[in-house]
Each structure stands twice: as structure tokens, then as C-alpha cells.
């Protein structure tokens, strides 16, 4: 019977079929693992498959389903970025530095997935320590874009985006520090959401830039993403930056459609550097919103938003230089043990264990925080951050959401930008400001340019993911961009 399972359906349909007894969660997990193995040589999506864990969780889910005790994620296969700590299961962060490392505890979001009865099938590939926009900076090799195997999937959560785009799983988790969920979602043609800063616990997530990052869901439609966000969101006493705002039912407003939504379209996101094909796909999406009764306002200004790029590339590396100081080769992971002194062994461990982009960022951060430069770089960036935050607040005062492209262009070729760090950084121009401000953002497939997916970004009020998901649902019920799929090995 497992042969007959249709893996191309969304999670909420699997949930219905599991409850109807059409197939079991164990059969679904097995079919999923078979597809992952068929795709892995082509796409390189996963770093670790968690078959044993998955089958144990699937059996537990089957019991819950027969007991009539199932939630929306019970028995549903899900992949998680290999930046999320999993107890007793290798967690690499895409780095040689963490080779052989097995965490002693589960991160909060993984714990919540387990409570919900989800079935974790594997840990996905990523740019090393979540630093990158192409997944080329992984010690485990580049992930391929399923729409064109010679192109990047985006990053840093490239594997999580490809897992959903390639239909090996209906849902996955990534992390988004400057666009690392939304940008690969756009480049792979799936939905990806960055929650409001503080909405989701970061406990047990390998730390990169603590004031910017959030764990976020990938899926193919608004319902699935809403259910996953509802599962992972909420206060956590292990992470003192989580907010106490109650977690709503994110599907509650789904029947309200697009009518009446007040949508701001900020001019700064449509200037030079935006590819024509991306622009026209986004303009068509705006026309859909308008036709359905949304009120489009093109007079919105975010004049300081373009400064987000330098602000981000000061703040994130600064925080990274502190967070990554813990990798010293003493407690776990990669270690050089034939040096002459403690200090030399640590320096050699870090010199050999980190890849080029991680070293570059630690160096930038170390410089920006060093005596004599702190005021000019880090403090200045934090002040400009205040201005950007205020502009978002003002822009949203009379609007329910802001609408922009997610990226300036579609997926680029593998190798195209690897030798020019700043050109790579420009890929995140439209997503970075949202992390700087802290607001929630979502990327939704809205068309194709040169046969490659284009992403539409919606940005909401703090803690109002509901409106983003309502708009996504409204848009997806009128268009079928999210139902397009690349052709891959079954």
C-alpha cells in the first residue's frame, strides 16, 4: 500500500488521509525516506537522515491517530535545518568544526514538533553556520536548485527549501537571520516565513546573530505554514527573548480574503538592481491584490532601508564573532591537538575548522568591535537600526502590510558570485531590512522569470503573522503558482 502514497499533496491532506486510514504514518515515513534517497544524489538536500527516529515517531503517531488524539502535524514528515540541535543526533551546522558533535538536548522547536507528533525524517544542508545566500558555503557540498540543477537554491536554509520544493517533505524548518528562509523560498518556489523577532524560541539553535535570527517554517501553502508556525511559536523560559503574546490560530482569518487589506508598496524596493522579470511578476501580483479589493498605496517610503546592508554586515558578524568564540576544539567537534600551546591549538583548530565565509565574518566582526572602531561601526549600525525600525513602524501605521519583491533576481548559477562576497550579500537587499526591524515577513511564489520561480514578500506588523498568512491564503486561492512543481526523480 505504501507504494500508492501520493507524496505530492500538502500536509493537511496527508493529515486527513492518515485519519481516514488510507495509509499509516509509518508507511508515509517509509515512502518519504525512499524518495529522499532517490533525490539525494541529484540534489544533496540532506546532511543526515534520521530514519530510526522517524519510524519511532511514526509508530507513536499511528497510535495517537487511532486513539483519535491527532493534531494537524501528527504523523506528518518534516525536515529540519541542521542548525537545530537534536539530542543524540549529529548536528553539524554545515561545518567541519562540528564534525562528530551530538547535542545533549533537543532545541525547543524540535521538542514542540515531537509533542505535536510530527515525524522528523532528516537534517537539511545549509551554508556553514547559516552564513551565506547560496548554500555554496557548506562543508557538505552545494545543494542544487530543483528547477535548474546548475543553479543555487539560495541560502542559508537551502536544504530546507529544496526539501519542500522537491516534494520529499510537505514541511520543513529553517532559520532566517537576514533572509535565510525567505530568499531560498523565493528561489525554489515555496512559501517561507520569518516570524517576528521573539515569536519563536531560539533555544538550542546553533547561534549566529542572536538579535536578528528566528526559526521559520517552509511549506507549499498558507494552511500548512500556519499550522507549523502555530506549533513552534510561543514563550519559552529557556529563551528570555521570547515574547509572552498569546499564539493565535493562524488560520482563523483565512476566509477574509484580500478585500480591504491596506497594502503599502515601498518605492525603495523597486529601484535599480531589480530584474525586469521579477518586477513584472510582482506587479502582476499587485494587480491581483488590487482586483480583489486590496487598497494599494505606492506613496510609502522607507528611505533608510537600503542602509540595511551595511548595518546587517556590521551587526551580524559582530554578534557572530562573539557567538562563535565558543568553538575552541576543547569540548567537542573538530580539534587540532598537535600544537605547541593552548593558544596555538585553538587558532589552528579555528583556522582549519571554519570555512572561508565564516572566517571572513568573524574577522569583520572582530574588527568592528575592537577598540577604536566600536563607535564608528557597531554603535553607528545600532543607531541606524533604530531609524530603520522607526521607518517600518511609520510605514505600517496606516497599512496592514507592505509588499515587495523577495529578491532582486531569480536563482543564479552555482559559482557565479562565490568570489565576490559583496555581490552575494546584495541578494539579501530586500530581506535584510525586515530582520533589522524585527517584523515578520513571508515569501510567496508569484510567477516565473526565465523558467525560474519569483518570490513576493509581504511584511507585517510585529506579532501579526495572522495577516501575512491570511493574505497568502487569499492570494493562493486565486493563483496556482504554488502548485507548480519541478520534474525530479520520484
Amino acid at each position, binding site marked *: 500500500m505504501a507504494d500508492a502514497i501520493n507524496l505530492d499533496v500538502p500536509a493537511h491532506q496527508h493529515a486527513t488521509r492518515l485519519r481516514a486510514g488510507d495509509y499509516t504514518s509509518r508507511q508515509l515515513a517509509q515512502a518519504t525516506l525512499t524518495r529522499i534517497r532517490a533525490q539525494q544524489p541529484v540534489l544533496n538536500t540532506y546532511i543526515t537522515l534520521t530514519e530510526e527516529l522517524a519510524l519511532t515517531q511514526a509508530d507513536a503517531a499511528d497510535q495517537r491517530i487511532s486513539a483519535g488524539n491527532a493534531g494537524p502535524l501528527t504523523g506528518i514528515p518534516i525536515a529540519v535545518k541542521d542548525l537545530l540541535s537534536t539530542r543524540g543526533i549529529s548536528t553539524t551546522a554545515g561545518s567541519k568544526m562540528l564534525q562528530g558533535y*551530538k547535542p545533549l538536548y533537543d532545541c525547543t522547536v524540535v521538542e514542540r514538533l515531537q509533542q505535536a507528533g510530527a515525524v522528523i525524517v532528516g537534517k537539511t544542508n545549509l551554508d556553514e553556520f547559516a552564513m551565506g545566500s547560496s548554500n555554496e558555503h557548506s562543508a557538505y557540498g552545494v545543494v542544487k536548485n530543483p528547477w535548474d540543477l546548475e543553479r543555487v537554491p539560495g541560502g542559508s536554509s537551502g536544504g530546507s527549501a529544496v526539501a519542500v520544493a522537491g516534494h520529499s517533505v510537505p514541511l520543513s524548518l529553517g532559520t532566517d537571520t537576514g533572509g535565510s528562509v525567505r530568499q531560498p523560498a523565493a528561489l525554489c518556489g515555496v512559501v517561507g516565513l520569518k516570524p517576528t*523577532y*521573539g515569536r519563536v524560541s531560539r533555544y538550542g539553535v546553533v547561534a549566529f546573530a542572536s538579535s536578528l535570527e528566528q526559526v521559520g517554517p517552509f511549506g507549499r501553502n498558507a494552511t500548512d505554514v500556519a499550522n507549523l508556525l502555530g506549533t513552534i511559536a510561543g514563550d519559552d523560559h529557556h529563551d528570555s527573548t521570547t515574547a509572552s503574546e498569546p499564539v493565535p490560530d493562524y488560520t482563523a482569518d483565512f476566509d477574509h480574503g484580500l478585500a480591504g487589506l491596506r497594502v503599502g508598496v515601498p518605492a525603495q524596493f523597486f529601484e535599480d538592481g531589480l530584474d525586469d522579470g521579477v518586477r513584472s511578476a510582482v506587479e502582476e501580483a499587485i494587480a491581483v491584490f488590487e482586483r480583489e479589493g486590496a487598497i494599494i498605496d505606492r506613496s510609502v517610503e522607507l528611505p533608510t532601508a537600503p542602509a540595511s*546592508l551595511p548595518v546587517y*554586515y556590521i551587526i551580524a558578524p559582530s554578534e557572530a564573532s562573539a557567538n562563535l568564540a565558543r568553538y575552541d576544539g576543547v569540548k*567537542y567537534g573538530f580539534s587540532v591537538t598537535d600544537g605547541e600551546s593552548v593558544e596555538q591549538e585553538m587558532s589552528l583548530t579555528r583556522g582549519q575548522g571554519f570555512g572561508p565565509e565564516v572566517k*571572513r565574518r568573524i574577522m569583520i566582526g*572582530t574588527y568592528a568591535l575592537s577598540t577604536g572602531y566600536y563607535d564608528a561601526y557597531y554603535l553607528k549600525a545600532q543607531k*541606524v537600526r533604530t531609524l530603520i*525600525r522607526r521607518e517600518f513602524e511609520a510605514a505600517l501605521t496606516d497599512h496592514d502590510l507592505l509588499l515587495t519583491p523577495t529578491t532582486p533576481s531569480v536563482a543564479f548559477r552555482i559559482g557565479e558570485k562565490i568570489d565576490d562576497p559583496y555581490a552575494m550579500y546584495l541578494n539579501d537587499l530586500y530581506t535584510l531590512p525586515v530582520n533589522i526591524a524585527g517584523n515578520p515577513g513571508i515569501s510567496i511564489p508569484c510567477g516565473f522569470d526565465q523558467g525560474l520561480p519569483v518570490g513576493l514578500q509581504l511584511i507585517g506588523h510585529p506579532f501579526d503573522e495572522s495577516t501575512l498568512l491570511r493574505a497568502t491564503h487569499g492570494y493562493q486561492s486565486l493563483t496556482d503558482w504554488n502548485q507548480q512543481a519541478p520534474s525530479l526523480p520520484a
Partner: protein
Amino acid sequence: MALSTDDVRDIALLARIALSDDEMELMRDELSSILDHFEILSEIDTEDVPPTAQSFNLTNVERPDVPGETIDREAALDGAPRRQDGYFRVRAVLD
């Protein structure tokens, strides 16, 4: 902002990252070019603007101070490259 190779050597020392001579040269050029892009920040007026360290200004979140479970010593040492007598082992810090 052009960095010298000596600047890069100093930063690498602070960051405890051993770099080869080739890496040092490449890093000097790349970091200098990235720092150039930061210059536009100096054109933005931030007079009287307070810094933001965290988006929604949570401060001093506390929890009751009660003893909880701690990590088992053996488990904590399990991944250590070198250990001795229940401790992590490193080379002598003092002569």
C-alpha cells in the same frame, strides 16, 4: 578603508584564527572592499538617536531561581577530543 596585512594579522590574532599567508592577502583585499561599503553609514545623521540592541525592547526577563536538572558529567565529556580524570584536557597554560 584599506587594511594592511599587519592589520589583518592583528585581527586574526584577536579572533584566534590561524591564517596562511595566502589567506592573509586575500582577507586583506576582501575586508578592505567590504569596509568601503560601510562608508555610507557615516552620511546618515544619527544625532540623538539611541542604539537598538533588540527589536522590541524586552529588558531584564527573569525566572524564579530554582535548582533544575544538570548535564551528566560523563555525557558532557563524551565529545571531548582529550579528557582526563573527569575533566577536559588542554595543554599547560602556565610553564
